[in-house]
């Protein structure tokens, strides 16, 4: 199959109509990725715009989750994988300029599909990232925990039971706790791999509202199977298919008049 990348305008005009300028927070150039001998990403080039939400859509197995993992070197935790290409955070090549992958993950945080709180108290869950990064000042930790829980829109629900086990929270609350945990280390970019797919509509709406609020401070990249979700929360959308980036552009354009027939077929459910 021919890669689509050559025909994709990944640069997006840096000034919009109101003359508002934006910067690329992350840039990906010619990224290839293999599981063993199986090449699953083909020559992906994509720029992530600062303080915007970029959603990655595509059918199962299209490579979107693999792609998002390469943005904070989570792929390195999977044995037998190999990558080629450049991933930059600002001007830093995250694979060659930084030795310790965990340093990248403090700047590029991640929230997963299934909420995965630690078997600790609510407070300890959020404080965990600070403690492992060597912060000992208790007042500072308490302050950051509160601020993170407020940002994750969970504070009012848990402020009186911070010492309770995180497992006592509902699924939607656990997911927001994981978000608070990711926010506590003050990342610049937040990666979300289907953060709302296991949640009921009300919890989903809370997560989606949060995403839109958080983009003022963070750059957000979200993988989602839910096309309406991508349409609701994101500013830019990238459509992946069989390891290729088929189309990338403003969400409002992708969902009203996509340029590629494949994108059109996928989002209108005429696939096959």
């Amino acid at each position, binding site marked *: 199959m021919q890669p689509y990348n050559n025909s994709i305008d990944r640069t997006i005009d840096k000034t919009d109509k109101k003359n508002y300028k934006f910067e690329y927070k992350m840039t990906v150039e010619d990224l290839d990725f293999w599981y063993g001998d199986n090449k699953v990403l083909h020559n992906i080039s994509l720029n992530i715009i600062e303080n915007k939400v970029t959603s990655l859509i595509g059918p199962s197995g299209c490579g979107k989750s693999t792609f998002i993992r390469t943005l904070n070197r989570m792929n390195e935790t999977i044995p037998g994988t190999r990558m080629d290409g450049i991933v930059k955070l600002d001007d830093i090549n995250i694979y060659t300029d930084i030795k310790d992958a965990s340093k990248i993950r403090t700047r590029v945080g991640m929230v997963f599909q299934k909420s995965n709180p630690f078997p600790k108290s609510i407070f300890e869950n959020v404080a965990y990232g600070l403690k492992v990064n060597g912060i000992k000042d208790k007042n500072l930790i308490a302050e950051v925990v509160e601020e993170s829980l407020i940002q994750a829109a969970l504070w009012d629900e848990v402020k009186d039971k911070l010492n309770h086990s995180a497992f006592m929270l509902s699924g939607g609350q656990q997911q927001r706790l994981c978000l608070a945990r990711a926010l506590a280390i003050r990342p610049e970019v937040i990666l979300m791999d289907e953060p709302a797919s296991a949640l009921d509509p009300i919890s989903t709406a809370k997560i989606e509202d949060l995403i839109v609020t958080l983009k003022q401070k963070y750059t957000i990249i979200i993988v989602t199977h839910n096309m*309406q979700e991508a349409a609701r929360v994101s500013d830019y959308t990238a459509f992946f298919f069989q390891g290729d980036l088929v189309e990338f552009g403003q969400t409002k354009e*992708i*969902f*009203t008049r996509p340029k590629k027939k494949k994108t*059109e077929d996928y989002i*209108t*459910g005429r696939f096959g």
Partner: protein
Amino acid sequence: MTKHFHNEIEKLKNKILHLVAMVEENLQIAVKSIIEYDIGQADKVIMSDPKVDSLEVEVEEDCLKILALYQPVAADLRYVIAVLKINNDLERIADLAVNIAKRTKTVTRHPDVEIPFDLHDMLSITVEMVKTSVDSLVTNNTQKAYQVISEDDKIDDHDANAFNIMQKQIRINADYSEYYVSLLSVSRYLERIADHATNIAEDVIYMIDGEIVRHRSDLA
């Protein structure tokens, strides 16, 4: 789910085509009634309008249902939005056909007085514009749609011309003022119908290309 959705779109397509056929027929009969001074035909148009109205409501309800239940995107979204708007234009065209039919009754009282402007040309251009605009919808043809848009100025000129002529005629022959005012109204209705045909054409272009071409003077 997708299958049900595509069935709904198909059903909507059939309904709007049915409406197209009804409106086109009513317009043709209204035009015939005024050319042939045939009150019987005029009554036929007036009587059948409620059917158009109820089908228009049905189409709108179907569009709203599809938007609420399936949240269509891309070409599907553009299709439903275009149908929603075209539906409204078709219903207005049918109403204007009724207005023309009503004026037939006044005009028919004076078969001996010559119609002082080129009503026939105006009628045939307008009917052709409506036909071409709905053709562009049925055959997904933007070329036809652009053709409709470019015709609209001719009707505007005819209408402006009719206005000037009627003003003079009423001054000269005040006894026939009711007759002339009716004819002037017909001219105005035709001008409105041509505008609705233009709207339909513009919505067809949006539906196919995703481009909004309204308010663009270079197309006229």
